[in-house]
Every structure is written in structure tokens, then in C-alpha cells.
């Protein structure tokens, strides 16, 4: 088997002497969608931030593409990892095209190449470029903003995508649409995806495997089918919520 895209080796994170997560051992294979599922405060987001080095582990190590995150230049590392967060974090002073084309701009792409890429990405996420490229973020619906957020994360074709409650702020119908399209997109582009959610249904809809988080540790990791029949207390409790 080829080396995993991301690996957590005895990784933990403590703040002011309190251990928030860990020690965690996780292997995330290339092309799979691993859903980190758990209640808020269970350490999912912290784990995500260890992967793109918004945080450094206080114990163990996190290995991305064969190299420990502390050996990566954080800027280089993050350009190889698309990041979609709940409030999307679209820059409110830039148009849709400005937001989607931002990382290509940081990477010093020519304006023509940027323009073409923005058009391509907007079509990919189902937003007709003619109608949307010049809009401001506040002129978009919640679902459209999330689509722009996904397009922006894909801009320089990073092999890895991190999503933190990416579809948490939209209505259930739009949410189901986004989930379906996102799954197809991630598979078609063969991205390695780490997706944080507290929603069991979302996890079942998206996951190749599910890692259940409680109090900063992972009592269960397995496929969707294994999740459905597992008898671990934490898993059973989550299934109850469904």
C-alpha cells in the first residue's frame, strides 16, 4: 500500500496544561474521505488545524505527504491543502472571482490563467460564471457562498481538502444538494478529504470512513458499514441522535 496522505502519530495538543486531543493515531489514505464525527468540543477542529499547521502538535507528530508538519513551511503546506470553514470566510471586500482567484494570485499566476481557472471552477461548483463572477459575497445566498468556498479551496488543485462543518450554515435541502455534489466532485478529482461534522447523516452521506471523536480521542474508526453495526458506546450514542 502506498504511504498515507496524512498520518497522525501519537499526536496530541494541549493548551495551558490541559490536553485537548490525543494521543491520536490516524492514517488517512489518498483519495478517501475521512469524516471526523463528534459533538462540538470533542477536538475535531483542533485535529484539522494540526493538519494544516494552524496549530503545532504538543506531542507526537502529524505527517503530511511523508513529511512532518513541523518540517513543512506553513505557507507551502497550506497552499497544498484546500480549507473550507463553516462561515466560509469569504473575503467580504473581494468579488466572487477575487475570492476564488486569491490563492492563484498568491501563487503569481498570470491574470489570463487566473481568469480561465475561476470560470472553470465556478462551472464546476454549479455557479454560471457570467452571472456570479462579479458578485460580492453579501449578494449570495448561504448555499452559494459555500459553493464559492469550495471553489476557492480547489483553486490551485490541492491534493488535500479540509472541511470544517463546511455545510453547517445552510438549510437542510441545500445541504443535501451540496453534500451530493461535493461527494461526486471529491471522487472525480480524487481528493483526500478530511471532513469535520457533528451531523451523523452528513457523515454517512460523505464518508469513506468515519472517525468518532469524544473528549479528544477516537474510540471508533471504520467504514460506514462498520459504523452502522458497531456497538461501542460512543457510536451507539451517535446513532441514537440520527
Amino acid at each position: 500500500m502506498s504511504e498515507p496522505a496524512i498520518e497522525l502519530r501519537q499526536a496530541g495538543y494541549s493548551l495551558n496544561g490541559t490536553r485537548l486531543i490525543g494521543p491520536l493515531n490516524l492514517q488517512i489514505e489518498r483519495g478517501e474521505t475521512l469524516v471526523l464525527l463528534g459533538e462540538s468540543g470533542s477536538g475535531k477542529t483542533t485535529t484539522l488545524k494540526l493538519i494544516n499547521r494552524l496549530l503545532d502538535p504538543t506531542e507526537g507528530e502529524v505527517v503530511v505527504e511523508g513529511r512532518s508538519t513541523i518540517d513543512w513551511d506553513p505557507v507551502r503546506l497550506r497552499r497544498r491543502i484546500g480549507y473550507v470553514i463553516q462561515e466560509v470566510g469569504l473575503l467580504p471586500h473581494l468579488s466572487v472571482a477575487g475570492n476564488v482567484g486569491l490563492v492563484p494570485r498568491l501563487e503569481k499566476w498570470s491574470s489570463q490563467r487566473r481568469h480561465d481557472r475561476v470560470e472553470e471552477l465556478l462551472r464546476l461548483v454549479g455557479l454560471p460564471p457570467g452571472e456570479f463572477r462579479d458578485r460580492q459575497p453579501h449578494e449570495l445566498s448561504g448555499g452559494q457562498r459555500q459553493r464559492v468556498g469550495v471553489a476557492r479551496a480547489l483553486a490551485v488543485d490541492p491534493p488535500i481538502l479540509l472541511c470544517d462543518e463546511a455545510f453547517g450554515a445552510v438549510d437542510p435541502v441545500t445541504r443535501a444538494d451540496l453534500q451530493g455534489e461535493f461527494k461526486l466532485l471529491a471522487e472525480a478529482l480524487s481528493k483526500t478529504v478530511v471532513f469535520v461534522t457533528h451531523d451523523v447523516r452528513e457523515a454517512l452521506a460523505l464518508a469513506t470512513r468515519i472517525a468518532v471523536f469524544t473528549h479528544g480521542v477516537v474510540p471508533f474508526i471504520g467504514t460506514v458499514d462498520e459504523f452502522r453495526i458497531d456497538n461501542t458506546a460512543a457510536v451507539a450514542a451517535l446513532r441514537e441522535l440520527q
Partner: protein
Amino acid sequence: MSLFDYLVQHRVDVALRTLQHLGLVGVSVGIAVTLGVPFGIIVARHLQFRTPVLAVANVLQTIPSLALFGLLLAVPVIGLGARNAIIALVAYSLLPIIRNTYAGISGVDPAVREAAQGMGMTDWQLLRMVELPLAAPVMLAGVRVAAVIGVGITTIAAAIGAGGLGVFIFRGLSMVDNSVIMAGAVPAALLALLVDGGLHLIERKLDWRVR
């Protein structure tokens, strides 16, 4: 002599004093922006500096202008004139500029900042491409406050020989002539309104929220 007659008769003098007035305010606010914006950024990034920096700026703001001119007068290299006035005006302008730069930058939505860091922006790119543009309207509001206060205080700077429209006011006071006082006071008031309105327009242009 009526105010109108006085203004017509002394139109060149009034125009020159108005330009001088504007020049003093412009130079002082320019210096205050150059000093205050970096201070505001530092304070926003390193909260431990917030209390001391804002405290100093606050204290400067509370010194009565005539007293500050007097204090600066006693410093050998400063003495009388425009230099004295500019130093005092810079001191008064710092607080609104530092405070609003700090407020503007710390008001940036944490989600936006996190997204920008997450996409691999360096600290400098984050500041230049995200924080400063988003803080710009608030920062400019600080500049506007500083400029309007400056127009007012500059009238008093005529007392230490810095020139400006205050010259007519002090001249009128010593001559006990209301027309001469008004020849300084009316243009000064109009100038304050103009500066306020003009900067307000630029502020709206920079404001991403109204686009």
C-alpha cells in the same frame, strides 16, 4: 466695516491664511498617520501594548491645546511658529488614528482571518490584502476626526505665530472688531465642514460594505 467688505478687501490674505491653515493640518495629520497606523497595527497584533499605547495617546489628547503650545515653547529647538504647532497637532491626531486602526483591525471577522491563514497567506499578505482593506473605512473615520479636530486647534496655533486663520481671530480680539474675528472664524468653520465632508466621501468609496 462689515464682514463681507473685510473679506473682499483682504481676500488674498484670507486665501493665503486658509491655505496655510490647511497646510498645517495636512502636514500634521500626514505625520500622525505615518506614526499612528503602525502603532495601531502593533497594538492590534500584540495586545500587551494596548493599554500603555492608548494611555499615552489619551493623556496627550487631554492636555489643553494652549497649554501644550506653551509647554513646547519652552523646548529650545521647538520654540515659536509652525514647528511647535505641527508637533502639538500630531500629538492630538495620534489618538483617533491609533484607536481606529486598532479597532478596525481587531474588528476583522476571525473566520475571515482564519480562512486567509488557511489558504497560506503570509503575515504581511494577511495585513495588506485582508486586514488593512477591511479596516480602511474605520481607519479613515479616525483620520477624519483627527483632521476636524486639527482644523479647530490650528486656529489657536496663531497665538504662537504659526499662522493660519486664527491670525484674524486674534487680530480681531485685540482690535475688538467682530468683522475681523469673523473673517477668521467663518472660513475656519467652513473648512472644518469641508474636510469632514470630503473625507466622508472617500470613506464611503473605500467601504466594501456599501458596494
